C-alpha cells in the first residue's frame, strides 16, 4: 500500500546525506571525543567541533556556545532548571505561556513545587502571546522568560525579537524552545536577543536522540547548573561521553538547512498552501487553527466541523498525520493547545495536523487533498451533527447528555 508521511512536526525521515555523513563514525572513526591520547580521539573531537560550528552557524552563534544534549527535552530541562538553580538566589519568578511543549511546562511545574513562582501567560485566538502583558508580568523577582519560537501543534510563531528586547531591558534571561523553527526560519540569536535556545536533530532530517542548547557567553554571560553530573563535558553543563555520530548528523542536518535557507522555507510553504487551498476549495466549514500568516512553513492545522479526528485518520490511514482529538491521547482530553486558543472542544476533537517536509511532493499533496475531501464528505454523511446543522438546528442550543 502506498503511504504518505505528513507528520513531520512529530519527526522526520533522516536525509540520506545526513546518514552518509554519520556512517563512518560507527565502525571506523569510533573514538571518544574526550580521548586526547590517540588519533581515534582526535578524529572524534574534530567531528564534534565541526558539528558545533555547523549548528552555531545556523543561528548566528559562536561554536563555544553550543552544548550537545540528547534532544530538546533535555535542552529545555537544562535551560529552565539550570537557570533556576544558578540564579535562584536573585529571584524566584519564571514567565512562560500556556501552549508550550510539555518539555517546558513540566520543568516549570516541577520548579513551582520547589519554591518558584511561574506565570503561564495566556495566548490569543491565533496562539500569540501579548508582549505588553509579558512586560507587565515581569518583576524584580523575574529571572527567566521561556517562550517557544514556533508551536508544534499549530505552527504559530511568537514575536521572539520583541520578547528578546523586553527581556534585555529588564536583565532577564530569555530561553526559547526553537525545535519547530530551527532550520526553517532564519534565526540570529544576537539580533533577537536570545540567551538560551533549544533545538533537536530529528525535526530537521537528522537522527533521534541528539539535540543542542545554545548558551550565550557574552552580553551577558549566561550559566546553567547541570542537570546531569559527571565527567564535566560540555563546559560542565552536560556530562556524558559525546554522541559523535549523532552530533555529526545534527551538524550535517543543520548545514543542509543552511544551504537551502533561501529556497526550502518557501517550497514548504508552497506545499502547505497547496494543501490548504485544495481542501478549502472543496469543503465548507473547515477552520484553520493557529495564525494565518505568522506560522511555521511546515504546519497546517485544520478542524473539520462535524467529524471526529480519529475517525478521519482511520478513513485515510495511508496518510500519516496527527490529531488534537481526545481519542488519540491517553488522557481522553482534547489538545490543551487548541483549548488555550479558545477553539471549542468539539472543534478540537475535529482537528488534524498536517506537517510537510522536503521529501513531500506536489503530487502527494494532490492525492492527500482528494483522500481528505472524500473522507470528510463520507463521514459527514454519517454525522448526526452535520444533519442537524443542515436542518438549521443550532448545535449550541441543544441540551446534550454529556457523559
Amino acid at each position, binding site marked *: 500500500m502506498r503511504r504518505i508521511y505528513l507528520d513531520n512536526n512529530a519527526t522526520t525521515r533522516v536525509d540520506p546525506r545526513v546518514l552518509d555523513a554519520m556512517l563512518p563514525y560507527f565502525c571506523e572513526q569510533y573514538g571518544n571525543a574526550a580521548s586526547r591520547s590517540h588519533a581515534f580521539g582526535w578524529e572524534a573531537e574534530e567531528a564534534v567541533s565541526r558539528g558545533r560550528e555547523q549548528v552555531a552557524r545556523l543561528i548566528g552563534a559562536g561554536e563555544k556556545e553550543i552544548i550537545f544534549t540528547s534532544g530538546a527535552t533535555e535542552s529545555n530541562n537544562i535551560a529552565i532548571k539550570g537557570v533556576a538553580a544558578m540564579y535562584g538566589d536573585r529571584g524566584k519568578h519564571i514567565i512562560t505561556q500556556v501552549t508550550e511543549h510539555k518539555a517546558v511546562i513540566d520543568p516549570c511545574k516541577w520548579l513551582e513545587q520547589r519554591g518558584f513562582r511561574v506565570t503561564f501567560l495566556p495566548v490569543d485566538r491565533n496562539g500569540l502571546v501579548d508582549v505588553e502583558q509579558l512586560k507587565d508580568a515581569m518583576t524584580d523577582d523575574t529571572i527567566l522568560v521561556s517562550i517557544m519560537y514556533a508551536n508544534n501543534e499549530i505552527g504559530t510563531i511568537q514575536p521572539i525579537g520583541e520578547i528578546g528586547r523586553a527581556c534585555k531591558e529588564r536583565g532577564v534571561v530569555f530561553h526559547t524552545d526553537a525545535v519547530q523553527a530551527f532550520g526553517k526560519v532564519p534565526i540570529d540569536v544576537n539580533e533577537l536577543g536570545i540567551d538560551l535556545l533549544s533545538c533537536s536533530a530529528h525535526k530537521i532530517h537528522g537522527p533521534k536522540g541528539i539535540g543542542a542548547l545554545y548558551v550565550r557567553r557574552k552580553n551577558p554571560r549566561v550559566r546553567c547548573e547541570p542537570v546531569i553530573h559527571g565527567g564535566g563535558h560540555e563546559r560542565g553543563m552536560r556530562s556524558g561521553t559525546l554522541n559523535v555520530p549523532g552530533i555529526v548528523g545534527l551538524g550535517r542536518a543543520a548545514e543542509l538547512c543552511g544551504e537551502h535557507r533561501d529556497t526550502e522555507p518557501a517550497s514548504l510553504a508552497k506545499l502547505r498552501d497547496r494543501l490548504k487551498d485544495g481542501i478549502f476549495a472543496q469543503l465548507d466549514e473547515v477552520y484553520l487553527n493557529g495564525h494565518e500568516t505568522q506560522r511555521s512553513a511546515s504546519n497546517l492545522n485544520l478542524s473539520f466541523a*462535524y*467529524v*471526529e479526528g*480519529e*475517525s478521519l485518520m*482511520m*478513513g485515510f490511514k495511508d496518510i500519516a498525520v496527527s490529531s488534537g*482529538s*481526545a*481519542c488519540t491521547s491517553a488522557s*481522553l482530553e*482534547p489538545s490543551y493547545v487548541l483549548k488555550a486558543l479558545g477553539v*471549542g*472542544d*468539539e472543534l478540537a*476533537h475535529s482537528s488534524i495536523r498536517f506537517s510537510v517536509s522536503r521529501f513531500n511532493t506536489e503530487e502527494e499533496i494532490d492525492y492527500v487533498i482528494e483522500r481528505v475531501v472524500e473522507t470528510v464528505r463520507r463521514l459527514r*454523511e*454519517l*454525522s*448526526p*451533527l*452535520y*444533519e442537524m446543522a443542515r436542518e438549521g438546528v443550532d*448545535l449550541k442550543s*441543544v*441540551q*446534550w*447528555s*454529556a*457523559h
Partner: protein
Amino acid sequence: MAYGDKVIDHFEHPRNVGSLDKNDEHVGTGIVGAPECGDVMKLQIQVDENERIVDAKFKTFGCGSAIASSSLATEWVKGKTLDEALEIQNTEIVKELALPPVKIHCSVLAEDAIRAAITDVKRKLHKSDGVPGAATEAVK
C-alpha cells in the same frame, strides 16, 4: 493504535446509515453523547404493531469504534421486540468488536442509544394509554 478487523469492517462498510422520520408514531429516536466529548450517536428504530423492530438506522459523530458500535447496534436490534432489544448489553458489543479498554465508553454509548430510542418509541405508542414517567429523549 491498531483497530480490530470487525471495527474496520463496520467503519468502512457501516450498516444501516441514515435517518427515519422522527415524527412517525412508530419511530423511536435516541440521541446520546455530546460534541464536546467527541461523540454523539443517533439511533432510530421503527416498530410494527407487535412492537417488533422492523428497521433501524444510525448516524454517529465519533471515533471509528463509536461508529462501529452503533453500526453493530442497528444490526442487532433489527427483528427483536422492544423488550428483547433492551437486553442488549454493552459488554456484548465490546466482545463482538474486540474493543480495547479505552474504547469501552463507545459500547456504553451504543447501549444508551438503544435504550433512548426504545424509551422514545414506547412513550409515543403508549401516549394514548397515558403511561406516565417515560423519560424523554436527550435532545429537545
